[in-house]
């Protein structure tokens, strides 16, 4: 993962934790809104699909990277908002031996593992990013550590963090070694709690001359991997009112199903106990919409391989013939509209009339091209940065993946990359990725998705096939919104929804479906809408750019499509002029 090739591929999309530090710093896009949310002293739950950049965001804001940013970008160091990064997708978190114990001991052992991981993260952070503590600061820290870690040996105060890490390591090794012995499950260890160990250490750090004004953010990554007790412990910690020393920033995939209960049986509340930073929204704000973010990501990475100033649109150009065809279709649709309206010349129209023409062309221009090319035998050319952004369905990793392969394809053929990716290469890779996605679906998702039965996989294959057919039919026939690629569920009967929720869970895990929440037509209400991964559509010749709006499909039709391969009726009118919900 970390190997540099002779021609470094700028579109590496590995898990953030496995990326080289320099790359991560170079590639990270500073977003003012995210930065502000992460620097709050309140608790924040960060919700995002896999590959949406949660881990990268947390790692970038951790102490080690704060130090590297200071060295490379002159960012503040020591920072006054210190990030302590605690990954949860580790073999320590995945241990299940606590379940052999009575429930009370399960909680105690789970808390021990979790607290030790946090303490180790603190020690490692300050070892990796040394801070110029004064001698009296070290004395404060050493005294506190001796008080809360009775077995710790600190001969030299300046080695407090090393001794702290070693102490954690020793305790964990002894505990885990004892768990391996024999056939009984009896262990002895010094039980600790968050409040007996982490809080005093952070408070001691806050008393040092360096961090008197500082705030500590404990950056918990992949909290969905914690065991049930650890999730409830973390939720209980979120209810801690005093944020003068620390707060939590917790990244979760799938907040809508995440356990929010506390150990005492309560529930943590949004607004009261935590804020939400939702990366599943296509738009976070005017300044940081996904398309702009995607452009910034690509251009920053190009700059990293010496292609400074190269616009993403130029590196991934649109096919000229495709552009010309779309332009011709737009012109033709505009002419037809003008004629139908009895308007002679576009330049003579009022502002409202011009807008009306623009809206009409937006709705039907591209649709005309895609409808009329049906007669042609081959698929359209899927190229251009805009196309790639839409194909990514709002997930950065989905954008980087085909870009990586396009770049790699050129390098492996010893072709020049500086002038950008030829449209033919782009289109070939897109179609091949689209084929791969369907191939995986047809081969059976039960082989790749946990908890997916053969029956589930068959139903999901039927459903996605029916949705593809439905979108194709809409493109051909629909009067108002022919290019829609998202849907909402109407007539949501509970039995049908139960069936669909299981399929949607599997589709989400396979990254074939994304569920977002948006404003509904009914003022003030929110509703879930569903967007299949747009990489599915090139092999069907659909326009992956889609259009604003969502189709409304009754739950019964979706169930019948999945169970009985019934086509979804195409005459269901979608809502018109929905809010901006797509990725455009």
């Amino acid at each position: 993962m970390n190997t540099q090739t002779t021609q470094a591929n700028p579109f590496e999309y590995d898990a953030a934790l496995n990326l080289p530090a320099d790359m991560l710093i170079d590639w990270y896009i500073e977003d003012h809104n995210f930065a502000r949310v992460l620097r709050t002293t309140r608790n924040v739950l960060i919700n995002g699909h896999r590959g949406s950049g949660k881990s990268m965001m947390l790692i970038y804001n951790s102490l080690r990277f704060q130090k590297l940013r200071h060295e490379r970008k002159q960012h503040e160091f020591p920072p006054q908002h210190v990030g302590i990064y605690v990954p949860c997708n580790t073999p320590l978190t995945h241990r299940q031996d606590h379940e052999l114990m009575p429930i009370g001991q399960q909680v105690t052992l789970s808390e021990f593992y979790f607290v030790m991981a946090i303490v180790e993260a603190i020690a490692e952070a300050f070892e990796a990013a040394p801070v110029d503590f004064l001698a009296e600061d070290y004395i404060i820290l050493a005294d506190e550590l001796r008080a809360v870690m009775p077995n710790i040996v600190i001969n030299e105060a300046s080695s407090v963090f090393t001794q702290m890490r070693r102490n954690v390591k020793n305790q964990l090794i002894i505990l885990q070694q004892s768990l391996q012995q024999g056939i009984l499950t009896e262990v002895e260890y010094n039980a600790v709690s968050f409040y007996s160990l982490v809080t005093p250490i952070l408070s001691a750090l806050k008393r040092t001359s360096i961090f008197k004004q500082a705030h500590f953010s404990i950056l918990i990554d992949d909290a969905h991997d914690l065991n049930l007790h650890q999730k409830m412990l973390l939720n209980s910690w979120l209810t801690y009112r005093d944020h003068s020393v620390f707060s939590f920033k917790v990244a979760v995939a799938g907040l809508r199903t995440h356990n929010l209960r506390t150990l005492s049986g309560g529930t943590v509340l949004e607004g009261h106990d935590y804020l939400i930073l939702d990366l599943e929204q296509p738009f976070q704000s005017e300044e940081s919409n996904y398309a702009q973010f995607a452009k910034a990501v690509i251009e920053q990475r190009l700059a990293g391989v010496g292609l400074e100033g190269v616009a993403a649109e130029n590196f991934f150009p649109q096919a000229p013939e495709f552009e010309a065809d779309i332009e011709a279709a737009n012109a033709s649709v505009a002419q037809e509209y003008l004629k139908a309206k009895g308007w002679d010349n576009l330049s003579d129209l009022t502002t409202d009339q011009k807008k009306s023409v623009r809206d009409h062309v937006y709705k039907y221009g591209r649709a005309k091209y895609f409808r009329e090319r049906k007669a042609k035998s081959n698929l359209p050319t899927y190229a251009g940065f805009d196309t790639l952004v839409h194909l990514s369905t709002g997930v950065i990793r989905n954008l980087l993946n085909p870009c990586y392969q396009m770049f790699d394809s050129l390098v492996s053929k010893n072709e020049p990359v500086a002038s950008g990716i030829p449209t033919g290469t782009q289109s070939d890779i897109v179609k091949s990725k689209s084929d791969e996605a369907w191939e995986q679906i047809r081969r059976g998702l039960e082989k790749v998705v946990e908890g997916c039965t053969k029956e589930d996989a068959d139903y999901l294959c039927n459903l996605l096939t029916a949705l593809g057919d439905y979108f194709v039919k809409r493109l051909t026939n629909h009067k108002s919104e022919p290019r829609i690629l998202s849907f909402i569920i109407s007539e949501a009967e509970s039995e049908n929804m139960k069936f669909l929720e299981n399929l949607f869970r599997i589709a989400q895990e396979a990254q074939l479906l994304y569920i977002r929440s948006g404003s509904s037509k009914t003022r003030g209400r929110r509703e879930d809408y569903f967007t299949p991964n747009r990489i599915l559509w090139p092999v069907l010749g659909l326009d992956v750019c889609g259009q604003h709006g969502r189709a409304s499909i009754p739950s019964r039709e979706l169930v019948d499509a999945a169970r009985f391969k019934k086509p979804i009726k195409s005459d269901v009118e979608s809502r018109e002029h929905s809010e901006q919900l797509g990725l455009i």
Partner: protein
Amino acid sequence: MATILVSFASWEPRFIMGVTHLIKSGGIDKCVVIYSTEYATRTAPNRTELQIVAREHNVELNEIPIELETSIASWKQLVQELPQYATGGIDVLFDISTAPREPLWYTLHILDALGCNMRWVYHHPGAYTKDWLSRNSQSPRLILKRSGIALPGKKTCIIALAGFDHERLAQLIERYEPIKCFVGRQTGNQLDNPSRNTGFNEAFVNQKEIEVFDFNCYDASNDAVQSLLNRLPIDIWEKYNVIGAALGPKPSAITMFKLTQIHPEMGLVYIPSGEYNPEYSSGIDLNKTSCGKIDRLVPLVLENLKPPSVPLVAHGADNLPV
């Protein structure tokens, strides 16, 4: 000396044919059959037939029902029942042919902890179905008592002996996001291996974080374990949290178990299947039987980390007659 035969009940013909063959070969005076309650109905005909065979040969037959669904349940049932039949110093022959890896590893751990002298045997089927073998895989889970020694701050490394089921390997990589993987790819043309290996190269070979090497997963001899060790950089044990998976032919589970004897810091991981094909395999090929013994390999490793002194053999194991 009395030998206890431990086996795991299956509906596959090789279960009853294999156990019957071992009993008829003599030297077995007690047989312990572990069976899954989830598949009790499907395995009932073979278990009934085994009762008749055992009676005919004066072999005491005992059954241990376990629930495969959770690690906790199956561990508790095995740890409660097995010590009733196996005690320190006794010879145990474990027929691993049809044992799912999780109860297989639990059984090995318990027998090892009890101080039994362990040997294993694996019977190849005549043929596998051309259709699917298992599916509906569940979340990977670490093996109780063999979860390794994981430390926060270390990245994850996976060592996998992989057969044809490369989708499970992909699942494992997706789940644990390792920074490094070492994958032993099954060699040979046996049992349609090349066709089942389709897609393996595309998925794993030349991936930067994945080092693929050929490995005979049927050979679980000490030499094979040593040759696996020789493939691995010596610093991984200190540098990473190491997880071991046996996704290939069943004897690879023995190899990985032996590796945890040498490197207890490595955790074993298992990916349960929700469904097995009722026509999983047919017949038995006794000519290909693999077998061996299980003992601690610490002296072997302390002695050296050099290549094995004898060439690996296809089914040589530890040259122990069964």
